[in-house]
């Protein structure tokens, strides 16, 4: 692997610069152009996302060249690991923008700031993936979180939305506090905030500095909060339920992946020497996260809330792979997060379409008979739910397959067993929706009052992209695996 060293290499942050420019552009358009252009803000931001995507792949050198570029005094790392995560974020952002456009119009929400904030959040996530230094990492996390707090409360007229934003904000601030405290402790015991320097220092001065260990504990808490791991998951259901549906889709994919990206970078690259220390902690957290997420999801009637708990459970699966930190482990993390982005955003796209103005129709009973009224939506929803449940031939199945085989290979058989039992449990609540769609008659009253779902072209495109992703990840896994493996190599 070739290493290119330079103090400031602007090409390393081209994608972030582009996204910033586009979000500023949207804010300016919002302020200075006539309201009739407002439909185009979404497309403008989409162009920004695509441009950033191109630069992520091409700059500073091609993805397949396997180079690692350090820039800004080692604060910024562009390796394939970071790039793969950026691809996931941008994918999630693009899909979210597609499913948001019509939603914003129907809910009479403001356009400009919405897309600007989504882009800001994306920039934050990308910074988290590329940060080679803890302060930068912290700023990226804050940028992401702040934008998300606001987005969660974007529908101000709805109480639940306000509540979600406030809760998310207060609890998130605590997590931020823990993160800062952790960084401070690590700085205090190693004298540096650069992740590589921390690794060097830990290697040099031995392992058992309690300050360092404590800092690590704080980092676990902070990342655990952002990735919604049990027991730091309490905010998830309320926030997911209260936030506008497209934002819930967004939050469940990108930020979660970003938390894992930073988590893995700090712990694999900065603190690998301490792996023995945190193995059991992660073990317990993974087991708890999977189990509690799935078990509570069983009794949810609100489909957004159900998917919130399911997303907790999925974070647990990812954590299993994270623990099996071999080559297979990290590649399966990447693989799973990519799959998860497709399937979860796909499912939320359909929820968005069906929820109706003000989102009254988000309960499982609202899906009764959908298979007959809207076969397209029902088929797509079933596909995504099957994938979430891990039924072949979908990407979700392959992802779980890789994760559990990684876990077994690294000797975490107990955890793999818990994971498999959990995915069996999860089939119950995913299929409940499918059963409602295909095997239950809609009650006539509901049918009469039900608003027609809103399938805008952009939303349909998003559903198609997601479905394509889910299926191709399930049917042709090997090409993705090859890319994922290349991305993993960077994190050595």
């Amino acid at each position, binding site marked *: 692997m070739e290493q290119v060293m330079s103090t400031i290499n602007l090409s390393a942050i081209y994608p972030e610069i582009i996204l910033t420019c586009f979000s500023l552009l949207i804010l300016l358009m919002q302020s200075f152009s006539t309201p009739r252009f407002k439909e185009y803000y979404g497309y403008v931001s989409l162009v920004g996302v695509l441009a950033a995507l191109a630069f992520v792949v091409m700059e500073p050198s091609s993805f397949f060249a396997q180079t690692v570029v350090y820039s800004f005094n080692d604060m910024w790392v562009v390796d394939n690991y970071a790039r793969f995560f950026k691809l996931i974020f941008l994918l999630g952002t693009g899909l979210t923008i597609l499913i948001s456009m019509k939603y914003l119009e129907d809910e009479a929400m403001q356009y400009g700031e919405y897309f600007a904030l989504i882009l800001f959040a994306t920039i934050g996530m990308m910074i988290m993936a590329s940060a080679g230094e803890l302060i930068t990492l912290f700023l990226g996390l804050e940028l992401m979180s702040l934008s998300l707090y606001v987005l969660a409360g974007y529908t101000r007229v709805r109480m639940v939305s306000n509540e979600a934003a406030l809760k998310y904000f207060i609890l998130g601030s605590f997590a931020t506090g823990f993160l800062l405290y952790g960084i401070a402790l690590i700085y205090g015991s190693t004298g540096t905030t650069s992740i590589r320097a921390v690794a060097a220092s830990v290697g040099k001065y031995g392992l058992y500095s309690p300050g360092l260990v404590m800092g690590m504990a704080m980092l676990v808490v902070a990342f655990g909060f952002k990735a919604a791991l049990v027991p730091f998951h309490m905010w998830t*259901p309320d926030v997911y339920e209260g936030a506008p549906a497209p934002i819930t889709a967004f939050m469940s994919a990108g930020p979660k992946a970003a938390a894992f990206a930073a988590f893995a970078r700090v712990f694999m690259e900065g603190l690998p020497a301490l792996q023995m220390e945190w193995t059991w*902690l992660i073990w317990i957290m993974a087991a708890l996260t999977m189990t509690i997420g799935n078990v509570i999801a069983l009794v949810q009637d609100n489909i957004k809330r159900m998917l919130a708990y399911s997303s907790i459970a999925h974070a647990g699966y990812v954590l299993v792979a994270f623990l099996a930190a071999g080559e297979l482990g990290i590649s399966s993390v990447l693989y799973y997060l990519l799959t998860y982005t497709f399937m979860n955003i796909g499912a939320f796209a359909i929820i968005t379409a069906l929820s109706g103005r003000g989102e009254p129709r988000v309960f499982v009973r609202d899906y009764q008979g959908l298979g007959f009224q809207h076969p397209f939506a029902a088929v797509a929803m079933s596909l995504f739910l099957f994938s979430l449940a891990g039924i072949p031939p979908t990407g979700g199945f392959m992802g779980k*397959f890789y994760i559990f085989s990684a876990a077994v290979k690294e000797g975490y058989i107990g955890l793999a067993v818990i994971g498999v039992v959990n995915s069996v449990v999860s089939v119950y609540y995913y299929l409940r929706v499918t059963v409602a769609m295909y095997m239950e008659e809609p009650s006539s009253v509901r049918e009469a009052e039900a608003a027609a779902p809103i399938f805008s072209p952009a939303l349909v495109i998003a559903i198609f992209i997601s479905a394509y992703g889910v299926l191709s990840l399930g049917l042709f896994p090997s090409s993705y695996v090859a890319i994922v493996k290349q991305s993993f190599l960077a994190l050595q």
Partner: protein
Amino acid sequence: MSWLFKDPVLLAAVLCTWLPFLSMAVILIFTRHKPQLSSYISIGAVSTSLICALYLLIKLVHVGEPVEYRTAWLIADDIIIPFGYLFDPLSLLMLLIVAVISFLVQVYSLGYMAGDPGFSRYYAFQSLFAWAMMDMVIAPGMLQLYIFWELVGLASYLLIGFYYEKWSAGQAGKKAFVMTRLGDIGFFLGLILLVLGFGDLGIVAMNEAAQAQAIPSYLITASALLIFCGVIGKSAQFPLLTWLPDAMEGPTPVSALLHSATMVAAGVYMFSRIFPFFAASPTAMAIALAIGTITMLLSSTMAMATYDIKQVWAYSTVSQLGFMVMGLAAGGYFAGVFHLTTHAGFKALLFLCSGVFIHEYHSNDMRDIGKGGGRSLKIPMVCMTVGALALSGVFPFSGFFSKEAIMGVLAAYPNKIWLLAGLLGALMTAYYSFRLIFMILFPKKVDATMPHDAVHYHQEKDDKIQIDHEEAAAGHGAAHGHGSSHGHEEGHGNVFWYMAWPLIILTTITLVLGFFQHSLEGFLLGHAADAHGGEGGHGAGHYALLIAAVSMGLAGIAWAYYEFGRKGASQEGFLARLPKTQALFANRWYIDRFLRRFLDRAIYGGLTNVFTRNDRRVIDGGIDGFCLFTIGSGRLFSFLQSGMLQYNLLVMVAAVGLVVLYFVV
């Protein structure tokens, strides 16, 4: 995607095998309500496949070594499951057969299925079949072969049960599916055994290892026998042969394509695919030979007793498949494959011809067709006679050459009893095919003026489908007059010619194919000719055999003529004088009844009972309990999960404490 365009062979292969899939998807998703468009899409896809298959054949005809493309479809550490293409003479030939017959049948169906309410669905399933069959044919590994083998079975199930509103059609579909599955269980077990014992399911690797005796012989015998179960199921060999006649419930073009020419031949194809592997186990070969022979004889007798035109060809298919298995199992690789090729041609021809009669007279009964004036449909009549001649092995039709090849192999076999069985089979084959021909050609009471009643009498017992057909006919505005026994061909316009052209093409193929025996032999055996040297060598020393075989065929025809053809013949056949035997034949030797008894007693009475109890008590009870438990605990947890902010914070801080405690201790 650029890798795709670098290699035209690969591009052609991908196009060839995946276009039908694409067309199925497009039809099912988009054009379900535009039948005409659906059929064009499907035919377009399959004709492109045909062109690609031809291109591949021409391009690779002189390549000595098999060409293999494979990509790892699934990589899970040390398990790598490949997916790809294997081109060798056998797969190229079979690919072409499948493409040609699929194409012809789809064109033919434009006429036959016109106006059917499920027209789009029909073409979607046809595409599904073409896709699955082609991908099965070019599979480089047994697992891919197995996957598409099952998909082909699915397509067969869907097409047999195409008229799902008809109860018997649904039943027949189910029967076909279940019976073939029975064999597939053995197949799958064989594969598992092979993976465990040998570790590689690549076809080339298996064959080479078997030839080099790198696999222990007991393993070869065991897995070969298990895999042969798959052949038994798919190619309707004894004792799982009864599903095929029932499968005739599907539309006739489907019977032509799936249940005579290609799909049922998949078993034989698989046999020849891993022929060296089978050949390494004399025991397995002997058992296969026995089963092939029994199948051939039994089904020939069944064919003599039925009056249903499609049933005759169905039994004949079964017997010819048995004949192929005999040829292969006796060591005649080329002979078996050659017969498969020629049989695909003339049997598709026979079915398609019968389809015209059925379409025209709305009856499957050959007596009705004869009375209705079947002989007036000149093109189908001539074509069908050609097909029957080929089936009986009369010179110069293609069947003659391939049958001779198999006879030659059987003659070379030390035990002559197989040869005798083969000759007996040839006699019966000629008898039953010409029994049918003569019954249509020379109906008992030739009364061309009043076919009306006969036709309509039989219509009463028929149902919806045929009404649909009538509507279709009316819709096409063609002078479809059931009553007029003359001038059919002129008045039918497109619909008729859609059906006629495939017949003519297939007849031509049947006429000329036999003369390509030697070039085909060179192509198939190629460099391996010395390995199988002397095969099919019924040359100089075997004139006696030649004469014997042909005279058997001619004797059969003469016998049929005596009983059915000549003026004043009783048209009852010798079986009518032997009621017991006739009942035995007509009831398929009671195989069905036996299987049913066996299933009732052994499976339903014994095993199922135990399993049902186990299901109810242990599994259901267990799962119910588990569900109650999890849902209960879910309630508990979600109670704990209150939305109160302070409480959330408290839990979080407590968790932080626990985490710190963990690290410290």
